[in-house]
């Protein structure tokens, strides 16, 4: 990982930690060297902020600090951290110890931030966050509803620590759970603690983690501990943020799992599209090995645990456990048709425990604070917290951690800030391509998000993607989108998934171009039921969920496409056209400028018109119009 080496401190010269107790001493020594009141600027460098140039901001901040070169005492430390969560306001940074929050920062702002805020102690109002509709900006992180309404367990260190420096993580409490385990807990006690916590797998299926560990531990032979970092659901980036922001939580969780199951070997299977996660994990493993926290004789005990990273090669189906293990063995990632659990016979035909990134990241906190503490969050059936990636048509796009059982209303409106552009909320899609669309507004807005509840209404928890859809979303098109995704990502080996998806895609495509026929809906239901009941793996048996759930809740939209040849939401191109309302059009010319097809015509300050034969229906004019004058017909 050549690109990361420049920022990774080399700890090979450091003395290895030789007992669990010594870790506490090491942390005390680290804390003693840190002044809690010293100014520190945390620049978010998660994938979202990186995409909008946060690395340039980081460099500019460092340069600005160096250039200022005034009183050494107040010189803030500029720290590169993982995702802060508030992705739609990036690039962003927080200013400690006051906890100031600056958003939409550009490299050009760096000097001013240092001069005014670091040296002068003043706020820069233009960089502060102003909630939609509010008059006054909010200066502090803790006062912003997006942050204030969250409960951080998994994400407790994400965005606070430098993921490339293990000392920062240790100072913040990393590996304390592992030290506790190694200083006297038996493997059975560890499993009991996890069982007490009622932690369930965060990857989608929600299998109780403690029970899985127990059954794996009971098997003879060499055990493997595998972490599923192949987060493939489009629109979900929770696991990426955890791996990028706090890789040590994952490693520590895996090591504790390995101890509980008597394993000495672990694998992290990381999605290829997450190069940053691979870098942070690789750096974390190397530093943890240097300090003796991973590897041979961890913290001077008899327990050894080696782990390495394998990357996927772009296959959604590899998130399925048996497919993942095949892929880890260097083979084609097709799910195996075997009625045997991977905890009995998995990777290399040995007992293997596979958990998702977020599941492992929960483990250290549970060990440290106890199972009962964990169950104080969440509901009876779904304990603890869950990280969601809130995306789509919502004000505050980003990473959200809330206790299980929080209502959709609280997530979408309380934390998410509601729907932008005065649009109506139409649906929330959870569970990725295997999940369903929950219709809103109706009784479902106050549903409590948890494993059981979502399954009851035809969706699923999935890994935690939550996509908010407004009135301009066509549900037929959405289900065509997901089916098309699965058509490409199906492994193709079993008939129902392969043929059923082909047929459903063909039918849905027909409907979205206005060639729907009488009986299409019933046929979709018939094929969907067949696919869901006869398929081989979890991908296949949930593949029809997007279709079945949208038919169930939005049947009238299907009818409109098929019978009236209309797309009410204005998405399916052959089924609508744009028209400019001459009454409200001010002739500002913005749509004319934006139109890539030169289809808009009109004189300045006079109502414009759209040439239908030139229009490519790219939505540019519709989105750019400030007066709501573009109408969907």
């Amino acid at each position, binding site marked *: 990982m050549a690109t990361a080496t420049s920022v990774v401190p080399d700890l090979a010269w450091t003395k290895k930690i030789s007992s669990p107790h010594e870790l506490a001493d090491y942390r005390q020594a680290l804390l003693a060297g840190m002044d809690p009141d010293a100014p520190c600027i945390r620049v978010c460098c998660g994938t979202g902020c990186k995409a909008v140039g946060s690395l340039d901001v980081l460099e500019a901040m460092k340069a600005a600090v160096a250039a200022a070169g005034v009183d050494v005492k107040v010189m803030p430390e500029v720290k590169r951290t993982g995702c802060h969560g508030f992705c739609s306001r990036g690039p962003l940074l927080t200013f400690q110890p006051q906890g100031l929050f600056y958003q939409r920062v550009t490299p050009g702002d760096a000097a001013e931030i240092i001069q005014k805020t670091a040296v002068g102690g003043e706020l820069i109002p233009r960089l502060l966050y102003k909630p939609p509709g509010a008059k006054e900006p909010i200066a502090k992180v803790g006062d912003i509803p997006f942050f204030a309404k969250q409960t951080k367990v998994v994400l407790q260190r994400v965005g606070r620590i430098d993921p490339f420096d293990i000392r920062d993580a240790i100072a913040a409490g990393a590996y304390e759970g592992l030290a506790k385990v190694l200083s006297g807990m038996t493997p059975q006690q560890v499993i009991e603690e996890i069982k007490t916590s009622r932690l369930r797998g965060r990857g989608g299926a929600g299998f109780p983690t403690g029970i899985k560990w127990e059954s794996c531990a009971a098997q003879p032979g060499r055990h493997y501990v595998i972490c599923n970092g192949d987060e493939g659901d489009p629109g979900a980036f929770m696991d990426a943020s955890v791996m990028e922001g706090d890789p040590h939580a994952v490693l520590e969780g895996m090591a504790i799992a390995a101890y509980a199951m008597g394993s000495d070997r672990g694998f992290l299977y990381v999605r290829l599209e997450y190069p940053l996660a691979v870098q942070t994990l690789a750096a974390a493993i190397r530093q943890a090995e240097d300090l003796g926290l991973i590897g041979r004789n961890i913290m001077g005990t008899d327990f050894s645990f080696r782990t390495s990273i394998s990357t996927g090669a772009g*296959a959604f*189906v590899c998130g399925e456990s048996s497919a993942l293990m095949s892929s880890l063995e260097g083979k*084609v990632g097709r799910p195996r*048709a*075997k*009625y045997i659990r991977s905890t009995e016979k998995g990777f290399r035909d040995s007992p293997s425990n596979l958990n998702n990134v977020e599941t492992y990241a929960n483990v250290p906190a549970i060990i440290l604070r106890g199972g009962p503490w964990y169950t104080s969050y969440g509901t009876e059936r779904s304990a603890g917290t869950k990280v969601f990636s809130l995306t789509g048509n919502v004000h505050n796009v980003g990473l959200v951690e809330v206790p299980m059982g929080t209502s959709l209303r609280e997530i979408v409106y309380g934390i998410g800030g509601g729907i932008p552009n005065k649009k109506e909320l139409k649906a929330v899609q959870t569970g990725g391509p295997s999940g369903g669309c929950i219709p809103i507004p109706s009784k479902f807005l106050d549903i409590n998000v948890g494993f059981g509840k979502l399954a009851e209404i035809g969706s699923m928890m999935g890994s935690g993607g939550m996509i908010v859809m407004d009135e301009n979303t066509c549900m037929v098109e959405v289900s065509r989108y997901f089916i098309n995704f699965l*058509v*490409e*990502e*199906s*492994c*193709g*080996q*079993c*008939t*129902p998934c*392969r*043929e*059923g*998806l*082909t*047929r459903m895609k063909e039918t849905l495509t027909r409907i979205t171009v206005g060639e729907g026929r009488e009986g299409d809906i019933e046929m979709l239901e*018939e*094929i969907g*039921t*067949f696919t869901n*009941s*006869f*398929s*081989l793996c979890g991908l296949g048996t949930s593949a029809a969920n997007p279709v079945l759930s949208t038919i169930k809740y939005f049947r009238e939209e299907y009818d409109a496409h098929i019978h009236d040849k209309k797309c009410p939401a204005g998405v399916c191109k052959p089924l609508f056209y744009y028209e400019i309302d001459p009454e409200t059009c001010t002739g500002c010319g913005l749509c004319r400028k934006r139109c890539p097809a030169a289809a808009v015509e009109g004189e300045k300050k006079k109502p414009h018109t759209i040439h239908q034969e030139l229009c490519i229906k790219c939505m540019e004019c519709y989105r750019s119009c400030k007066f709501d004058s573009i109408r969907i017909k």
Partner: protein
Amino acid sequence: MKIVMDGKEVAAERGQTIVEVARRNGVYIPTLCHVPALEPAAMCRICTVELAEGRRSRLVTACNYPLRSDAEIHTDTPLLRQNRKVLIELLASRCPGSETLRELAERYGADLNRFPAEDRQCIMCGLCARVCERVGGNVLALCGRGVEIRVDTSFGRLSPTCIACTACVQICPVNAIRFEDVDGERRVIVRGKEASRVPLRRCTSCGARFGPVIDLVPVLERAGESGVPPFNASVCPACSRRNLARRLAERHFEQHAVEPRDAGEES
């Protein structure tokens, strides 16, 4: 272990699959991708049955589900018949004209023309690829993924490793693979496209072409028969039989001192 299949208690041994038990007890379960000689792959899914073990009832594939405890199995419920019907109809669109599918369609009342035909001459049962891996030269494989998965050779080229055993030809349930012997070569043709050309031996006795020229050692190794000396005849089976007959006749006549007749003129 008590196994009840369609209401009747049947004999079963622990670890046997549902299909094995059904076959032994004369219960019909349709299969398309299953032959007893190969490890089950559960790809076609038509053998799906309803299984109740304890309180839980679920759908499992009969070809690879090992029976380990008391169970009640239903092999022909309305739900299964309905889904099998859809399955056959879907497969028929990619492989119209298949006799195997026509027979199944009759049984389950499926409409073979329900979906527009797109003739791929293949139902993707994967048997050819599996048998090729097991006994052949690893020539055919399931390439690509998603709905575009297909049976192909590496890079779509003529395979250099084919041993022309034609196991794929024999096993294909929709007769999409054939072979022909032309110009001293055996050509294996998969869905109309040549997959390999293997030269044939020339009989040193009559000059006719027979059996492919291949290195059998790796094949025998794979079959767990590494000690067996490979077959290396230079005479075709017909001539070999004729020669043997002639030798036997010569010996007979030598012993009985009778003038031999010309063996070649026998009919």
